[in-house]
């Protein structure tokens, strides 16, 4: 075969031919299942625009996006940072951006990485399948943008901005971690939105109805607990039960919640997702080269940027900044492939199920059915732990020194695996805060409860700030208790809505 191109300049024709060649390998040889692909060529400025609206082609307007834009622009103009090569959107068709500045080789890399790697992950992974609806997200954001700008016209930019600020502060607490969402189309969503407004208001009013109840049996009855069970989704609870919110405000809370829910799987599958895309761009580009469709020069260029992407600086390096998800993810998929194809005795002992079986179905299974946490605890092999020279450090405030609790040796493998897996558990990375109770009969105050994990306290300054936002949404006083594992309250925060209003 002749190389597709020899120079570094790209043209539309070349992009089309590379895309066709990559697709043929991805679909034909490796049976990757993807959404249809839409490649969009954009300029660096447009890339910065896309950055600042969290990668989405449309989004509602808010100053925080402007802040991100200003930040990115500053960094880029001073040359402190390059722009990412790619942004890919979990939508159907899957939209991948190609930046016009890139060389042809880089465009091919991005096509392989984003349009086939990420794309198949979006389509295959169970979290994305359950939590996001690729075909509806763009439409939903269009709806959200229009709705919010209508609210701005009607109620003023400031009112909407305040509300969004408060919602954003709680965005990480606006997701259902266990319950499955329903899928809705745009039309249904719009139709239901009006209906919902009226209905919700009714419900809330019902909750706070002040008609005195007749005492039953004369006995002093304990106030009914509300909510009956603690609620993990704070924004959902506010949307449904905050007494003073107007219907439009509830709808905006809902929009923020939906957007948070959409991005939730991405936050849980960073290593898997990036690793998968990196694995595939590596595999696909190598196939292209094997088929002699890439020149030696292009291959060198590709390998150079690939090596940069998967470089893991050691902890002693000055630029060490935690574990590089690209490096870890890529290494893990490569390692699974290795275990399938050329298992050692150690692998047979650790991975009896997959050692020596065809690698493609195993990899597919691994991609589809895990998130970072479970992926690592399932597939991190002793060999990788040795290769990365992982070690675990325990930081305990009851101890005056740090302790190395495990290294890459026989006794340490299991421990490192479980600690690393825990490190990717969003549930333990973020404080576990839930709606605990509402004082229905008294001052209507809302109590949130933080359940401590490993005695980790809440950061006081930020907790106090966020609480003001909660109070603004709730409309009455808000309390937050941080509770130890034995049930004693260790930290208390308190916020009155007037105070919140004054200082926000």
């Amino acid at each position, binding site marked *: 075969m002749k190389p597709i191109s020899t120079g570094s300049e790209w043209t539309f024709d070349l992009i089309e031919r590379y895309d066709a060649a990559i697709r043929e390998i991805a679909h034909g040889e490796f049976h990757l299942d993807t959404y249809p692909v*839409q490649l969009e060529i954009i300029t660096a400025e447009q890339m910065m625009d896309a950055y600042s609206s969290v990668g989405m082609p449309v989004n509602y307007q808010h100053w925080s996006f402007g802040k991100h834009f200003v930040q990115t622009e500053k960094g880029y103009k001073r040359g402190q940072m390059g722009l990412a090569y790619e942004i890919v959107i979990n939508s159907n068709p899957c939209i991948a951006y190609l930046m016009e500045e890139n060389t042809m080789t880089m465009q091919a890399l991005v096509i392989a990485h984003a349009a086939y790697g990420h794309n198949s992950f979006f389509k295959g992974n169970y979290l994305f399948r359950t939590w996001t609806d690729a075909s509806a997200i763009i439409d939903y954001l269009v709806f959200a943008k229009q709705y919010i700008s209508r609210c701005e016209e009607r109620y003023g930019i400031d009112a909407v901005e305040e509300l969004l600020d408060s919602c954003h502060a709680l965005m990480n607490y606006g997701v259902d971690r266990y319950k499955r969402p329903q899928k809705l189309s745009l039309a249904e969503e719009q139709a239901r939105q009006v209906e919902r407004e009226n209905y919700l208001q009714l419900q809330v009013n019902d909750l706070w109805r002040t008609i005195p109840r007749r005492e039953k049996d004369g006995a002093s009855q304990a106030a009914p607990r509300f909510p009956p069970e603690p609620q993990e989704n704070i924004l959902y609870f506010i949307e449904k039960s905050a007494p003073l919110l107007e219907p439009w405000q509830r709808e905006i809370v809902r929009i923020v919640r939906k957007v948070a829910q959409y991005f939730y799987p991405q936050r849980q599958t960073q290593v898997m997702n990036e690793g998968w895309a990196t694995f595939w761009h590596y595999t696909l580009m190598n196939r292209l080269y094997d088929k002699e469709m890439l020149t030696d020069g292009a291959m060198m260029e590709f390998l150079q940027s690939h090596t940069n992407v998967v470089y893991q600086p050691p902890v002693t390096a000055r630029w060490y900044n935690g574990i590089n998800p690209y490096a870890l993810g890529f290494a893990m998929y490569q390692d699974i492939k290795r275990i399938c194809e050329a298992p050692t005795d150690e692998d047979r002992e650790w991975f009896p199920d997959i050692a020596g079986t065809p690698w493609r179905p195993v990899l597919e299974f691994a991609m589809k059915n895990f998130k970072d946490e479970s992926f690592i605890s399932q597939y991190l092999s002793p060999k990788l732990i040795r290769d990365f020279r992982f070690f675990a450090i325990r930081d305990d405030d009851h101890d005056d020194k740090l302790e190395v609790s495990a290294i890459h040796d026989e006794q*340490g493998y299991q421990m490192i695996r479980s600690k690393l897996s825990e*490190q990717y558990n969003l549930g333990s990375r973020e404080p576990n805060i839930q709606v605990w109770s509402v004082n229905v009969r008294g001052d209507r105050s809302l109590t949130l409860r933080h359940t401590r994990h490993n005695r980790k306290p809440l950061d006081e300054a930020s907790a106090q700030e966020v609480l003001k936002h909660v109070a603004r949404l709730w409309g009455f006083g808000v309390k937050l208790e941080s509770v130890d594992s034995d049930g004693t309250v260790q930290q208390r925060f308190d916020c009155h809505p007037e105070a919140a209003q004054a200082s926000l």
Partner: protein
Amino acid sequence: MSNIIDRRLNGKNKSAVNRERFLRRFKAQIKEAVGKAIKGRSITDIDSGESVSIPVKDISEPTFHHGRGGRSDQVHPGNEEFIRGDRINRPQGGGAGGGGGKASNEGEGEDDFAFQLSREEFMNVFFEDLALPNLIKTQLMGIEEMKSVRAGYTNDGTPANISIVRSLRGALARRVAMAAPTLRQLREAEEDLDTLLESDADNGPEVRERRKRIHALRDKINRIPFIDPYDLRYNNRVKQPKPTSQAVMFCIMDVSGSMDESKKDMAKRFFILLYLFLQRNYEKIEVVFIRHHTSAVEVSEQDFFHSRESGGTVVSSALNLMHDIVQKRYANRDWNIYAAQASDGDNWDSDSANCGRIMQESLLPWCQYFAYIEITQGEPQNLWYEYLKVAEHYKHFAMQKIGSPADIYPVFRELFKRQPATR
């Protein structure tokens, strides 16, 4: 088949709205920064962007996160020397194993969120206090004025610009050119026919055939369109910058003891505005700074705004100095002379009459415009009344009492209304 779409021509400023929202939210801080910048900057340098910084805590978006304490395990790569059970001192400053993300927040340069205001944004904030009408703002911010002049003809344009004579002339030429070969053939065919007819032989079929050919050739000529889109010519107009000339601006300020910092700041805004106006209309501007108390001197901008003197006030000294400078350096008619005078109204009593006289006799005839502001909260004093008399006679003399920056604009109302002088 993948879809490939070229989005490069789509708007690139999608984030402009969000950026504007961002500026709007931090208006107070930005205004403060702009205020500081105006104080710090030279008048002639007012017209550029500005770097603004906002404390990070003001613009942070809070979320719940863990504080320091409790027990945590962190896994790191690149072990070189540790074995299990090693005990290490806590690193100073950051929590060990606190994760990369948090550590980077402690880097320097994070205290302030700094960013660049564009020139336009800067000017917007600057104009905000001054209560300028929108038209003036665009006039001040706009690029130099253009005038459109004729520049021949082009092949495309709007229908309104079609040049009929040119188009028809072109059409005629085209018709002639296109018909020429056919006409020649036609002529030949006609001659042919004539010879045939003149010869007496019976050659009916040939004659018919010739006639048919002549007919066809005529048809062909008729089919040449009278006018074709190709013939259209449009009047071409190009924009040319308006001829500009040079101006000199005199800044005259009282620096006696009673002019404090805030009054000087107000005066500076007043001078800036005049400068901006001149900058739009003249290519070359010189600025002369004259400060005075009992006597006047010409000084640099630095000294003008930042040194403070004490003592009494004799305004006429400054006017005399201005007159001298005008005579010496700007007396030929190439210069447009503008002057702005700021004072708190104090003057030595018997000097005011003098001022009125100098103004009327030796300054105003030379000046395009002379603006006077009195920055004071109190009652106007004799200089004010003297100037009122002057203002009655001269339209290009403006005066105003100023309490807040919003009062500055009315001084220039007349000036902005006029077409810029282009002598």
